[in-house]
């Protein structure tokens, strides 16, 4: 546009007659004001309408898990309106809530209380919280995170555990607190009374070592860390039982770990205790007479054994009946013959009784016999510590079979049947090293290195804390103050 610029006089001249223009309503500005007004009014109306009849899912950051899906229309089941409805919202209350939020964050307490109330009513149990030396307990919602999508609730992430266990300040405070507590009567992992647990004393600083992950700094298992021995009085040599000369079992089956160590219906190995009758007797039948393998010593009671030996003639007579002899003379002849043959092997009744109780290697008295027959022969001292008692039957201490070696953690053998890398059956010996163990005192539990082989990013098998540990203490401990603070 090449028009020359006008002078001020010319410019003002063209406005003459219209100098009051600024006092008139300007269409554009008025329209903008109206649009703003209607937008604000519509927003306000929407808020009011929503607070009266709105669907609260509008504030829902994500679908509820299947566990709480029924509560999707009743937010108040978890989110308490107490802040709003608990009386009039006064200035002081407003300030208190604001101050609290800016110091603590959005409160979880009302939600936690609702969790506890609901689960107490539904499950008839309260949830005790971890250990007494915890310095900072967690809110339910922190670990059990809701609004993360349908389906099962998201599993508790290890990072939640690490937020304390990888925090030196918290662990130090926890150790200090723990050292001032009386731990008598505190059983974090209670077990049925019939179950024998290898319970080691609590470390002085508790379980407060700082570490970020299972594969990165988790302390060695306590029974591997400390010089722990199996105090069982039974003499058992695992290595010997894997030897090549061990005769096959009934049906030609080879003796394997699973013959003695049997899982229960849930795959746990701590509920099916090994017994002489169920496992050992198949081979160690306590036979006393090569010609009469049916005649075996009783097990479990030395008095009964002694009584058996002292009335051996009557046991031979019973055997004769079982073999089909009916005539008294035939029975008597059978008993006499057997007793005379026995006399050829032993010097006296006392000598025989001594042999039965104190022979530690029953293989020696039967040279040249079949291995099976030799193994089945008597000799309590082979497996037991036998103490002689004057004028009484010898004493044999009852063996102690430990049902649970690591009570702080849980382990599912059923999930460890296959090597995840090779997909080949996993040999028990890979973790337990039983084939190399000769002594009863050997604790055949694997160390953490064995677990980390698979349970680590390198092993590509899940290594979450909750895989082995649980956070909540048993309900019984809720009475000890292990509730959420």
């Amino acid at each position, binding site marked *: *546009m090449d*028009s*020359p*610029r*006008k002078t001020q006089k010319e*410019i003002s001249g*063209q*406005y003459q*007659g*219209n100098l009051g*223009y*600024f006092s*008139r309503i*300007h269409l*554009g500005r008025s*329209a*903008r004001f109206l*649009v*703003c007004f*209607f*937008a*604000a009014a*519509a*927003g*306000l109306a929407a*808020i009011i309408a929503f607070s009266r009849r709105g669907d609260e*899912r*509008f*504030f*829902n*950051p*994500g679908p509820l898990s299947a566990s709480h899906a029924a509560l999707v229309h009743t*937010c108040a089941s978890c*989110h308490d*309106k107490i*802040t*709003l409805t608990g009386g009039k*919202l006064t200035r002081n209350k407003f300030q208190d*809530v*604001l101050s609290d*939020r*800016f*110091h*603590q*964050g*959005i409160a*979880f307490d009302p939600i936690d209380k609702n969790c506890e109330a609901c689960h107490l009513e539904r499950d008839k149990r309260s949830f005790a919280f971890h250990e007494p030396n915890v310095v*900072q307990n*967690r*809110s339910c*919602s*922190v670990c059990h*995170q809701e609004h993360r999508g349908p389906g099962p609730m998201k599993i508790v992430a290890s990072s939640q555990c690490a*937020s304390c266990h990888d*925090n030196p300040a*918290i662990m130090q405070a926890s150790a200090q607190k723990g050292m001032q507590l009386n731990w008598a009567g505190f059983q974090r992992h209670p077990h049925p009374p019939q179950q024998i647990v290898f319970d080691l004393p609590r470390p002085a600083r508790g379980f407060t070592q700082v570490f970020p992950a299972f594969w990165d700094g988790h302390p060695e298992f306590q029974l591997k860390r400390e010089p722990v021995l199996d105090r069982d009085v039974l003499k058992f040599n695992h290595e010997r039982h894997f030897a090549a000369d061990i005769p096959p079992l009934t049906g030609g089956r080879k003796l394997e770990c699973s013959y003695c160590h049997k899982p229960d219906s849930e795959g746990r190995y701590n509920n099916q205790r090994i017994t002489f009758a169920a496992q050992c007797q198949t081979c160690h039948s306590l036979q006393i007479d090569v010609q009469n393998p049916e005649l075996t010593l009783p097990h479990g009671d030395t008095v009964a054994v002694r009584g058996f030996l002292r009335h051996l003639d009557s046991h031979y007579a019973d055997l004769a009946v079982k073999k089909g002899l009916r005539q008294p003379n035939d029975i008597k002849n059978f008993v006499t013959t057997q007793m005379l043959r026995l006399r050829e092997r032993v010097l006296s009744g006392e000598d025989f009784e001594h042999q039965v109780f104190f022979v530690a290697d029953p293989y020696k008295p039967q040279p040249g016999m079949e291995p099976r027959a030799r193994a089945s022969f008597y000799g309590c001292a082979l497996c037991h510590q036998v103490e002689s008692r004057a004028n009484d039957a010898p004493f044999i201490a009852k063996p102690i079979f430990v049902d649970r070696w690591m009570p702080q953690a849980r382990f599912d053998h059923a999930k460890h049947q296959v090597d995840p890398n090779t997909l080949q059956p996993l040999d028990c010996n890979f973790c337990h090293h039983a084939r190399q163990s000769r002594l009863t005192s050997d604790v055949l539990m694997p160390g953490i290195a064995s677990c980390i082989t698979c349970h680590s990013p390198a092993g590509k098998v899940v290594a979450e804390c909750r895989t082995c540990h649980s956070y909540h203490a048993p309900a019984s401990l809720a009475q000890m103050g292990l509730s959420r603070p």
Partner: protein
Amino acid sequence: MRIFNRTHIPWFLLVVLATIAATWIYIGNFFPGRLPPGLSLPPALVQKVSQHRSIGGTPVGLIFGSVAFAIFIFGGLLSLRKRVVLWRIGSVQSWLRAHIWLTLLTIPLVLLHSGFRLGAPMTTLLMALYGVVMVSGIYGLILQHQVPLIMKERLPNETVYEQIPHVRSQLALAAERMCDSFKANAALPVARPVEPSNEPDLAVNDPESEAALIAFLKDQVMPYLRTRRGHRFKLGNTSYSNDTFRFVKLRVANAYHRQVEEIESWCDQRRMLDLETRLHYWLHSWLFVHVPFSFLLLLLTAWHAFVTLFYY
């Protein structure tokens, strides 16, 4: 408003430094492992260990959100400041600078408050509104920067916008007067003596030329000057207009060339008024989106804050 001048440098530095500080505090509190050694937060800036997985619910997240909300309120007050010009609380220019840069600072603050998640439908709606407000604001900022340059270049005689209808009607009136004077001349039997005046010089009375001018005025010029939307007329096109007026000059006697040029200047002025109207429209139309959405955002953010702090 030019956005790259010295007065904006302190604001720019403030926004950059505040963004760096907020990011540092955010990472230091929520992802301390990602901070390089030596850059860890001082204890005073580390919030009490929070159990929240949503960043916005933690004390640090709430502070980010609150500062952003405060800036929203301040941004909304700009329209009030513009209305009350005589308030002695900083010039409108200063307020506008603060409005621009502080609202730009809300981008990192809002993102850090949200933890880079949209969350519930409510917060998603808020984010969408915030997006509309910020995009329209930045668009407006670009227009406010570019359009004045165009106006300076193409509108040497800028008219007060509110006076445009008045000036337009004056131009139409002048055209009508000229047309009427030609008609009056046509009714006179002889030529009048020459009189110095502002009226068109009718010293030479050429009926043919005047008839041609009357027809031109009636058919093209007056409809163009009277209409509200001049760009729909052919005279609204500069090159067409130039050609037309050259042609009109050829059709009239030389004595009428001054009148033709005067008519041409009216049309030129009218085109400038139309251009100014168009530019003014671009300069302010974005406010029809920016301002209402800003108020809506302000309202819903207040609701969001109230509900999350006192209810959920």
